[in-house]
């Protein structure tokens, strides 16, 4: 890999200053960045190691019932925190359905939000990619597009966001706390990632030097804890990115849905919140025709970006199934195969 500077700042201010220079990158768990560097996919001139910054490693319970998760909390530690898993079971399930145990032990919450796409053409440094090299073109178009996006993509980029964690978070209205040169700000996760448009290299709203310091889940997110699931379809049972996934959360009162949250993964350049689909569920009963209608609404704007039309139908079915699973109730224990359809719930399948 290229030669680079390595700095380990002691304070936020030092970190932000060091990372504001062009070519700088923050390093936390390194589970994605270091691979990218070894492959020559990214070549930062300076690594700003924030992994030892103080104050970013705690899970704090807020007075209003929400939670503030420090950016350096490890994915595994968060998923296995009993109180967190009790209040936000689908987030824990999503986390545990991602990567492998070894990677989850290293990967951080902040880093998970910023992980790069798994588009094969992003990794293929010999080919053209607008994310790697703005303006170079998108060689994924017309190539091996099975895993490419069906929602939110543009002519300039058809890559998907790979995170499972973010799908559950965005469904539950998570907020990202960011520190920068001009102080701190909070951005809803739904607005944190950008769609590619004509600038697919700009993947988030972060300004140069800005650092994720925490992710917050509001108290209301825990109100779904009895009816919330994450479902992920993948090409093997573990250690594979989603072909498509969905998080679904329902609040059901007297047999009617009073609140619904739906988000999709593996199908769009960002964790994809389906607000229109959510609205179709308000006031109706938690049953399959309504879930199908919601799924249709969630995929209404979907179009294939290549040889991946199957993902539209698959995502539809996943949304409907995730809603059915959520309606059936959050299982008392996290399934042994997190987010897998092979953690069956009787009565949910309509074969």
């Amino acid at each position, binding site marked *: *890999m*290229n*030669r680079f500077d390595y700095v380990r700042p002691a304070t936020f201010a030092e970190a932000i200053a060091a990372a504001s220079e062009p070519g700088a990158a923050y390093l936390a768990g390194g589970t994605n960045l270091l691979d990218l560097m*070894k*492959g*020559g996919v990214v070549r930062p001139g300076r690594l700003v190691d924030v992994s030892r910054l103080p104050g970013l490693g705690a899970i704090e319970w807020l007075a209003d019932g929400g939670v503030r998760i420090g950016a350096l909390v490890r994915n595994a530690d968060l998923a296995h925190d009993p109180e967190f898993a009790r209040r936000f079971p689908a987030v824990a399930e999503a986390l545990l359905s991602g990567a492998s145990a070894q990677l989850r032990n290293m990967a951080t919450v902040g880093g998970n939000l910023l992980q790069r796409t*798994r588009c*094969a*053409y992003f*990794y*293929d*440094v*010999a*080919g053209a990619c607008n994310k790697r090299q703005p303006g170079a073109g998108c*060689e994924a178009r*017309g*190539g*091996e597009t*099975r895993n490419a996006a069906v929602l939110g993509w543009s002519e300039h980029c058809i890559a998907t966001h790979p995170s499972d964690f973010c799908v559950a978070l965005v469904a539950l209205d998570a907020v990202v706390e960011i520190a920068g040169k001009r102080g701190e700000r909070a951005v809803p996760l739904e607005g944190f990632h950008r769609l590619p448009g004509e600038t697919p290299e700009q993947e988030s709203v972060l300004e140069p030097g800005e650092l994720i310091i925490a992710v917050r889940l509001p108290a209301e997110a825990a109100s779904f804890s009895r009816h919330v699931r994450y479902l992920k*379809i*993948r*090409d*093997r*049972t*573990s*250690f*594979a990115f989603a*072909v498509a996934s969905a998080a679904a959360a329902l609040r059901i009162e007297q047999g009617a849905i009073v609140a619904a949250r739906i988000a999709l993964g593996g199908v769009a350049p960002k964790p994809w919140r389906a607000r229109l689909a959510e609205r179709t569920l308000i006031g109706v009963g938690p049953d399959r025709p309504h879930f*199908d209608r919601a799924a249709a609404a969630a995929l209404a704007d979907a179009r294939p970006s290549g040889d991946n039309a*199957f*993902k539209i*139908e*698959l995502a*539809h*079915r*996943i949304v409907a*199934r995730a809603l059915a699973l959520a309606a059936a109730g959050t299982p008392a224990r996290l399934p042994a*195969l997190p987010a*897998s*359809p*092979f953690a*069956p*719930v*009787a*009565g*949910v*399948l*309509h*074969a």
Partner: protein
Amino acid sequence: MPEIVLSAAPAHLRHGSTIGQPLTRRDGILKVSGGARFAADNHPPGMLYAVLAVSSIARGRVALLDVAAAKAHPGVVEIMTSANKPPLALDPDAKTNPFMRRLELLQNDRVRYANQPIAVVIAETLEAATEGAALLSPRYEEEAPRARLDAAESFVPPAVGVGQPSETEIGDVEAGLARSSRRIEATYETPTQFHNPMEPHAIVAAWDGDTLTVDTPSQGLAMAQARIAGLFGIPAENILIRSPFLGGGFGCKGLFTGPQVLGIMAARLVGRPVKLVLRREQMFGPVGHRAPTRQTLRLATSADGALLALSHHTRTASSTFDDFFEPASDVSHTLYASPAIRTSYEAVRLDTGTPTFMRAPGEASGSIALESAIDEMAEACGMDPLAFRLRNYAELEPISGKPFSSKALRACYAEGAERFGWQARPLKPREMCDASGLLVGWGVGTATFPALMFQGQARAVIRKDGTGIVETGAEDMGQGAWTALAQIAADGLGLSLEQMEFRSGSSDLPDAGIAGGSAHTATAGMAIAGAGAEAIAKLAALATGDERSALFGAGNAGVIARGGRLFRRDDESRSESYADILNRAGLAEIEGRGSSAADPVAQANYAMHAHGAVFAEVKVDPELGQIRVTRLVGAFAAGRIINPRLVRSQYYGGMIWGVSFALHEHGAFDSRSGRPMNPNLGEYHVPVNADIPSIEAILVAEEDRHVNALGIKGVGEIAITGTAGAVANAVWHATGRRIRRFPITLERLTEPLPR
């Protein structure tokens, strides 16, 4: 009577035999404690790091390399290109036998496939060499690559596999088809697959004048030694190859590869030891792969389900510059009785690296197609797939008419079916569901692999302290050769494992042949047994001819070697220790030599194959298409089992590979660039633990008096065959959908399904 005492002992103690015992692998502790030194763990003084620069185009020529930029990078010592490479004694494109691969050794500027080595950067550190390789920033003159099976005109290859005919027919297939009551025709596709052993190809090469020491994983030490000797024009005895451990081989470490030679060339160029290790993505090109196939099967039966004709045609691909044609059709020669069988081939040349042997080459690809087609034929006959297989059971090898040296396949079917519970299987598909509504399907496949033997040699020594040494240049690639062969060696010398030392994995030992073709245990084992027998015979001659010995005069009665003593065969109260015999003779040690080869007479008279039956259960989500193999039961008969624990482990590994073949593995190429698009273990999927919840292997007893004196058939490859087809057949049984393009992915299962 001693015999009564012995037969009353537990079976595993009978005759003091070490063979047959389920020993744990002898290198296990070394491996889990980090004490096993693999090739890349060697760091001789003064060693430099070499990194390959590889082509990003699949066809064309390298127009420019920025050697100056790479050389200017701190730490970079030298750039080896076609301009300054050390001279070779042999054209890398020369090919004088089928076990020789044409190599890319920087002989010119041509690019024949993506990831072909185009330069080697040598530096003080791995990081500097890696960056140096990036700084070469090659420019190319690119030509349109041919990447798919349809991308070129096909031809009939002169031979497939290793010299097998590309067209074979017995009976009259067309006539059989014409007079049949039922027939099917189906085309199956298998993708390119890459071996991907955990340990990539690695080499540490050190020259001293014209002698060379090499640490590198090799499945064939003597062949590698000869290849290096030819290329560098030095005597083979000047070359020492150490290969004590291989982190997997699967065939891609069988023939010496270009990158390994480049490591030796780099060491020669800089006059210092050099280490070269392939990056994972560089494993997708220069070290072989399993070629893609498109196989068309035509089967026909009589009204009562007897096969009348079987035609198996394979279209496959080799590289543009070398020949290896996946012999996928040949599996149809041996399994099912049919009066008419035809196998045939066509091939195209693609801009890829040259394909090579990959675990069960031909048999694996061919088996998934044949077993699927047999299932389709059974369905057309309205028969249970197992009953159909039994209906067409081959009592003689169909293609040759020879009797089998042994064939316990009926027992495999019976024991496997019993264990699996096959009898409860509904005939029609999509009739089983679990409690949660997941579709359940059961499938069966027949496993087969030839019982081969190569040529091998071994040396055995008995020392005057009563201990022994057995030496043979065998290769332990994780299969447990070091353990199983030591068990044979101990029995051959009549010693316990603790009383003897087994030396292996180095080219200065007697040639044990290649660890391939599932023939290593038989080949090296027979040589070892022979060496031990010769040493014992010499010892016995000393004792029985010496009137001071308790065994004097026992020459006609014979002796038995056991526990470090010779016993008079007809009177076991008379015995003497090896140490006493040697000490009295004033000898420090006594040596025996053994060699092995297939017996041509037995080969002429018998068909020799291992067999098995694999039963698979899958569950399929009917809406989402997600498939899970929930149960696998395999029953295999492979002659004498030296170490049941290791053999079971080989069967497990093969069966898991079968799942991988059916559901996961797929080398994806961009058809425009010819580049592999999933060249890493994150995206080139093989099953993980969570994909294999239940697996069982039954060792079916089989005695074979013809394959070799030890009765060993080999177990390394057979379990992929049968399994892949069983999984595919189970998917059909679960869903009613027959997927003929592998791997079976969820969209192939759900795409046309109405909601």
